[in-house]
């Protein structure tokens, strides 16, 4: 085999990561020299087979950071009208901890100021704030009984991404990239996109790779033609110069590879080739001008702008190119006060592009293999927050029942999973914990959440910790 062949082999071969602690427990039982699997050079992002046949190949997680109010969008509670303005029953509050506890004493029950109606063949309830999402009601499954573990933004956000409230564990996207690698050879396998006034709390920690190798961390794409750090050559380095330098580099590295036999050099040669391809494919990806007018209008995307709409369209372009996981952040959902204006404003920003993403994927035949998830780190209370009796009123954080929806990737559309009590405070049926959502996402990707493990500090860690059940009712 020539060096050329070997390098090509390392670039494309499907193999598992061998040298980073995976399966050490098993090795411990064997005799020392029985551990003689030849040390394959590793392209950590090479695509890998899942545990079982997958429904979805990619995931797009539209993350609404701040705590979207499920009671004003998805969980229709007509009974709240009856209690509107009354003091919440004491039994409800007993033993509960809330954020901003000290403000909770004077608060009243609060009905949704918006109208709800049923949509599609399935008749799912969606409020007037989300007409476009209502329009794809038959393609989405709404969960109204999501449960998380902490009522503050930072820890709950970390929990929603990593299954732990303490930052530092790998995020779901990193786990997925670790498990499956990527189908793209010229873009990162896990990408994060953001819009809105600021980065989400904890920033890169929520798309970090934790103790997994850093190859699996989410790569934040920046707006503009240079989405990845250092994608552009320095001024004066023309593509010809870059190519010439890379050719010399490759020749010298190949010689060194011959001399040392160290397969890491082959991996590095392949990495430089991918990097060079990225320099072309990155700007090409960001170039939305090539999209049809109809498509741009459907999303409400405008080339050159940094918006949620553009990011939804970019997410489609990314999964189209084989990227495994895309996180799209929208960061302005913390409506303690003036919910009437604020929720109207943010839903206007996300409703149309979110629905367009589902429609667009569907019309391109990609929805079957792409799992779309929409939701935040928690929801909001049926009890008011802010200053009662003034327009400056909103809702507090709520972690016992909130809404998330899923579409595509083998999810059964047109249904609502979970039932909450009269006022949407507690689940009555089908509680879905964050661990369960994670288990379900991994399941649709063909992975058993109990088997996707990484040994760190003497323990096999997993995304779902020691919990998690696949939510069968969501699956077609």
């Amino acid at each position, binding site marked *: 085999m020539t060096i050329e062949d070997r390098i090509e082999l390392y670039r494309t071969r499907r193999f598992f990561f061998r*040298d980073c*602690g995976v399966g050490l*427990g098993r090795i*411990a*039982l064997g005799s*020392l*020299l029985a*551990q*003689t699997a*030849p*040390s394959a050079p*590793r392209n950590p*992002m090479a695509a890998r087979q899942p545990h079982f046949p997958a429904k979805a190949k990619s995931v797009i997680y539209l993350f609404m950071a701040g705590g979207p109010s499920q009671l004003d969008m998805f969980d229709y509670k007509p009974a709240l009208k009856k209690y509107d303005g009354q003091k919440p029953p004491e039994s409800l509050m007993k033993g509960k901890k809330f954020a*901003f506890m000290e403000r909770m004493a004077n608060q009243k029950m609060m009905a949704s100021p918006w109208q709800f109606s049923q949509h599609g063949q399935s008749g799912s309830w969606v409020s007037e704030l989300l007409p476009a999402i209502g329009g794809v009601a038959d393609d989405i499954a709404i969960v109204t009984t999501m449960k998380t573990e902490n*009522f*503050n933004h*930072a820890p709950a956000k970390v929990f929603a991404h990593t299954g732990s409230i*303490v930052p*530092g564990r790998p995020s779901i996207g990193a786990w997925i990239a670790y498990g499956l690698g990527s189908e793209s050879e010229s873009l990162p396998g896990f990408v994060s996109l*953001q819009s809105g006034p*600021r980065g989400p*709390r*904890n*920033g*890169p*920690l929520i798309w*970090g790779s934790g103790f997994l*190798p*850093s190859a699996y961390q989410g790569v*934040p794409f920046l707006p503009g033609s240079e989405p*990845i*750090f*250092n*994608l552009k050559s*320095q001024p*004066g*380095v023309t593509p010809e110069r870059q190519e010439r*330098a890379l050719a*010399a*580099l490759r020749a*010298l*590295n190949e010689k*060194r590879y011959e*001399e*040392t*036999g*160290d397969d*890491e*050099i082959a991996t*590095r*040669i392949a*990495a*430089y080739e*991918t*990097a*060079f391809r990225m320099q072309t494919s990155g700007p090409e990806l960001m170039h939305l001008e090539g999209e049809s007018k109809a498509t741009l209008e459907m999303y409400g995307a405008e080339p050159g702008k940094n918006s949620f709409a553009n990011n939804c369209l970019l997410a489609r372009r990314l999964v189209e190119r084989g990227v495994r996981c895309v996180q799209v952040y929208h960061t302005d959902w913390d409506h303690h006060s003036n919910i009437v204006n604020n929720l109207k404003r943010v839903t206007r920003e996300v409703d149309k592009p979110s629905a367009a993403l589902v429609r667009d994927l569907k019309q391109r035949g990609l929805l079957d293999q792409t799992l779309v998830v929409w939701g935040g780190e928690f929801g909001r209370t049926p009890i008011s927050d802010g200053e009662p009796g003034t327009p400056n009123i909103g809702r507090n954080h709520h972690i016992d029942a909130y809404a998330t929806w899923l579409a595509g990737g083998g999810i059964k559309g047109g249904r609502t999973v979970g039932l909450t009590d009269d006022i949407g405070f507690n689940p009555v049926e089908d509680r879905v914990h964050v661990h369960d959502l994670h288990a379900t996402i991994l399941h649709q990707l063909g992975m058993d959440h109990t088997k996707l493990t990484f*040994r*760190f*500090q*003497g323990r096999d860690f997993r995304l779902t910790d020691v919990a998690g059940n696949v939510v069968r009712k969501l699956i077609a």
Partner: protein
Amino acid sequence: MTRRQRYNLAVMKLAWMLALTLAARLPAQDVFGSTIWPVIERDCLGCHNTKLKMSNLSLASGAEALAGGKRGSTIVPGDAAKSRLIEALRQTGSLRMPPGRVLPEVEIAAFERWIREGAKWPESQVAKSAPKPNHWSFLAPKRPAEPAVKNAAWPRNAIDRFILARLEKEGIAPSAQASRHTLARRLYLDLTGLPPTPGQLREFLADQRHDAYPRLVEKLLASPHFGERWGRLWLDQARYADSDGGSRDEPRQLWKYRDWVIDALNRDQPFDRFVVEQLAGDMLPDATPAQLTATGFHRNSPIQIEAGTDREQYRVEAVVDRVDLTGTVFLGLSAGCARCHDHKYDPISNREYYQLLAIFNSTDDWSEARPRYDARLHNLHDVQGPLLRFGTPEQLKQWDETYQRMLSLQKGKENEKEFARLKASLPQFPTTMIMRELPEPRETYIMQGGDYLRKGDRVEPAVPAFLHAATGKMDRLAFAKWLVDPANPLLARVTVNRIWQQYFGRGIVETENDFGTQGTPPTHPELLDWLATEFVRSGWSQKAIHRLIAGSAVYRQASEVRRDLDERDPRNLLLARQTRLRLDAELVRDASLVASGLLTETIGGPSVFPPQPDGAMSASQIRKEWTESKGPDRYRRGMYTFFWRVTPHPALIVFDSPNSMVGCTRRNRSNTPLQALTLLNDAAFFEMAEALARRLEREEPADAAKRLERAFEICLSRPPKPYEVDKLRELLAAEPDTGWNSAARVLLNLDEFITRE
């Protein structure tokens, strides 16, 4: 039935028949006395004794054994198939005992037979004491004799005899010694983190004395850069960073602690003192400022606090972080597994975990006097807890007075200006976060399921029973002293193993953070014990261990892959060669700085802000400034780059620098396209490449051949080979207008350049 199932069934049948045959051979009488009890004593009682009672099960007496444990009954007399004990020994389900091993078939068969025959347990047979668990790392290392070897000329010290004896047993010859060029670059990189300059290289090459090599080792051990290189690796374990972590990620000052580590390693502070001062320096009589600074070790915990949070939850998380990290760093144990339940594999009970936690639970983390969180005061000592302040008495007085006035201002728009004015007028002086014990210890309770709101029994500070005993009142200082007691079977082993793994890419125990029953066994157990005992014998001198390893013949071998060992030892576990290792993140930068001639060698001081790509700070919740350092500070070593936990410098993270949210005992070494983009296009690396080009043009202005030689000497510490000369000449000829810029970039991107060979 599938083929696999049929196969399994056949195997089971066979095992069963074998078991029956074996059992039949045992004498009918006293299977308990001859087999059952000795096995229980040897393999079970370490964890399942009356005192420790892991999984609430004790096998210390018949009555206790029959009572069962947390999972219900253990032994069903007369019915081996229904007895959980047999399930565990046969390891057919999730419960597998003893951890990490399977008993010999004859013993399992004896247990089955004993149960079938009624599980008779003589009343007199009761465990008198709780024996230590039977696991190699929990027993104190004994200094082994150095083994005899055939090739007596090869070993240079004891290490080599252990390695060679094993190689000879396998019939494998070690590799030849690496070239002196390679050895020089290897030693410089391993001991100081900086490649040799041409002058340093030539000095070594010219030294014809027989002990030129050990002389170089001594010289580098004495270099002040030794403390930087090895200090950074200690800082990985200490999860050192320049910001709080958490959503606000406010900046903090702990660089005095970083500098203390560098200094402690440079003066080879005995490791036992090094440990005690970091864990409990504040509790030493008449603690010096240096000893207080050392306690920054555990003040490196991230601070998660923000508006609306329950402070107690995050105080508890910080204590948990310290307990778990203490287990990992000093004992090589995953103590954290026992937070929610008894450890499944190692003899640490849930109760013992909280006894450990009680030791660390009485520190003053943020002012107890201020119950409400106030974001305005976040950077000040209010939230950051006790600080050691390096100001003049006047500065301290002024600071305190100003701070009191700030506290007296009500929150609100009308006071914002005044508040900001006062804050700006606070005198500036360095501070460092330190530990302080509360006057009265906090009460500690078991947290059920690890949840701080669900209080269980109250517990007192204590160390795990399976390790050596502690005497007297247990607190943080007593604990630190207990850790460094030479009777501790783990500390010395774990520490020398971590030093070893930096030189060879893998520890003698590969699972460097798990010496428990689930970890990998040592490849060279006797060598590990020899090094551990040598470490203690040398007075806990880390430099003594470095001297031994760096001086060994094993270390000096060539690193070329041995195709003849592809089948027999592809992972190089037996060390018949050295290993090529990609440089750590900071060292990738350092090597480029040395080659470019730009490096500022200053050691210590506040962290600095070298260039980074635009947008690197954009992802955080609170936008931070990154004002590029000018002048010499722009070219400091990578370890001095200001480390924001939430938005770390991209060039560090891309080369696997730890994220500092949790301690890191071994770095990953990934190999990715983003690394390639960084070295090719990042402004800082580009600047260094251009500086290298200018340097070469300056130092060898006329002669092209000499300039090429110089370039290789600077970057790779060796002369170029003919094909390398040809390739670079080709490149230079293709770009007559850009001088040496392209050639310099190629050199700084070479795999060999960022690799220790």
